[in-house]
């Protein structure tokens, strides 16, 4: 499923726009989850601008793919995408964190169009995404009203495309939460092959290196042991991301939930944030990072 150069070049341009929008958000808010937002840029760009089945004109389309940003504190990356998609007006970028803004501190399904999941408490998103994947499996085929009979699709495994897929973006530190593994067991039990989890493995949580704070390795083996199909990619390589996402779609029908472990760099693209493994940036740190980032990516 080789993707042509043109697609990758287009995605590069989109990633650059997403970064520009993120810098606008941070510039105005003077505070934000800089590290974990920057590590997501290529992942969410490829997801939204290449892979997902969505309609920016109709965010509530019942057949849209669902996205659960379980690490909801990095919603800046999604807001940046939603602006480029035209779901949100560009002016909203400078209103993040503000009272009356649709852009909440943590993503909220009632405040922001295009958001499927209200998060903020880590560890719950994968369960929620699994619930949405499960609902897709339960899609009801209604007979003509005259017969008045309701029939169900054959359970769990279908060779046909799903009505929609459910995507969950997890943080690596978030995988310290036990509920992630409860959801992993559940998804394997109910053969949720329409559920795709992307772990933004940026190697750092708030208190330090993720694996020193609490070891999650051997990470791939864990997911495999829980019955998942697993792939490891470079989470900043657009081609690898596009390839693996499309592969997960082709594997539909195998009865396995999919986990993409994306190796990323916290603060990616902004030297001072990369160096400091910045989690939340404020004041001087955010101003400096935005200047560095804008210079690097040629945003004026």
């Amino acid at each position, binding site marked *: 499923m080789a993707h042509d150069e043109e697609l990758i070049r287009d995605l590069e341009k989109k990633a650059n726009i997403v970064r520009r929008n993120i810098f606008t958000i941070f510039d105005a808010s003077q505070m934000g989850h800089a590290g974990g937002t920057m590590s997501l840029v290529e992942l969410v760009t490829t997801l939204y601008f290449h892979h997902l089945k969505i309609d920016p004109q109709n965010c509530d389309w*019942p057949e849209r793919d*669902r996205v*659960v940003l379980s690490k909801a504190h990095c919603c800046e990356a999604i807001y940046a995408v939603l602006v480029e998609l035209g779901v949100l007006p560009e002016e909203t970028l400078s209103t993040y964190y503000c009272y009356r803004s649709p852009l909440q501190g943590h993503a*909220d*399904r*009632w405040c922001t169009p295009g958001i*499927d*999941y*209200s*998060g*903020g*408490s880590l*560890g*719950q*998103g994968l*369960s*929620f*995404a*699994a*619930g*949405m*994947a*499960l*609902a*897709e499996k*339960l899609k*009801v085929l209604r007979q003509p009203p005259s017969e008045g009979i*309701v029939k*169900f699709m054959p*359970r769990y495994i279908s060779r046909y495309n799903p009505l929609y897929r*459910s995507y969950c973006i997890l943080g690596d530190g978030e995988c310290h939460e*036990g*509920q992630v593994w*409860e*959801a992993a*067991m*559940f998804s394997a039990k*109910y053969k949720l092959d329409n559920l795709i989890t992307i772990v933004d493995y940026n190697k750092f949580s708030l208190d330090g290196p993720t694996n020193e704070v609490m070891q999650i390795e051997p990470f791939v083996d864990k997911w495999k042991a829980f019955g998942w199909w697993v792939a490891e990619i470079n989470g900043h390589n657009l081609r690898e991301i596009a390839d693996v996402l499309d592969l997960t779609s082709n594997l539909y029908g195998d009865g396995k939930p999919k986990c993409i472990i994306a190796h990323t760099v916290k603060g990616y693209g902004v030297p001072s944030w990369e160096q400091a493994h910045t989690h939340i940036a404020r004041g001087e740190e955010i101003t400096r990072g935005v200047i560095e980032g804008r210079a690097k990516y040629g945003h004026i």
Partner: protein
Amino acid sequence: MVDEVSLRETYGKTLVELGRQNPDIVVLDADLCPSTMTRYFMEKFPERSFDCGIAEQNMVSIAAGLAASGKIPFASTFAVFAPGRCFDQIRVSVAQARLNVKLVVTHGGLSVGEDGMSHQAIEDLSLICSLPSFTVIIPADAVETAQAVKAAATHQGPCYIRLGRPKLPLVYTGDYQFELGKAVTIRPGTDITVIALGIMVAPALQAAGELATEGIDCRVLNMPTLKPIDEAAIISAAAETGSIVAAEEHLEHGGLGSTVAQVVAKHHPVPMEFVALKDTYAKSGKPAELLERYGLTTKHIAQAVRETIKRKP
């Protein structure tokens, strides 16, 4: 002898009835389906039943995801585990997201009995009522349970229904009409009002009967919907009977008594007394022994009425 019927059995059978009518009804349990009685639904509709194993946190967030996709999930476990074990999931995934999840929990209160304090949910109503957007119902008997479960299925928004373990005497006959958010006067009276819910409703009625022989005309109000509470019924009770006793199988703090007292204090202050568990955990024992030891019987309600009436100006 009045007929005693299991509320859990009624819940299980009502779920089957709902499942027949509406294909969007789905059921989740956390390895307790023979106890919560979701097993009836699970046997009848296996394709819409999901046993989550002993993982209540996951169960609640899964239910939220199902609700976000148009399903009407009923998730059941013991009252100690929801909200106790998964309060944050209920708060963030359900209440804040305002999703149409129905938590129907069983084995509420002291009447769990032998399993002891870890299994006696005496704080659940306080926890769940603290969450904006939740509707909280505690039925008094099997008739009310069936209707409350059906009302919850129709209501848009998060619901919590608390049932107990023991069979309870029927308070209502078949023609009873449960209305969400409405208290029911099950015995008229003018001297004092006993407001009760759940397993305390039948003892409250009995106490009122005994008090009548002493010349005390006691109104009994069943308050099946604890949240949103029927303020008008409470204000009328305060205004018309001049004193109130609240009776519940829960800690004194944060449940029915506290909520009624807030309404009374704000709108029509009158003397009040609280028949509830004082600030303590209980022990293992037979339900009747425990209710006696911790002050939750007909006798205790009657005594509270006598004391409260004395305080009327």
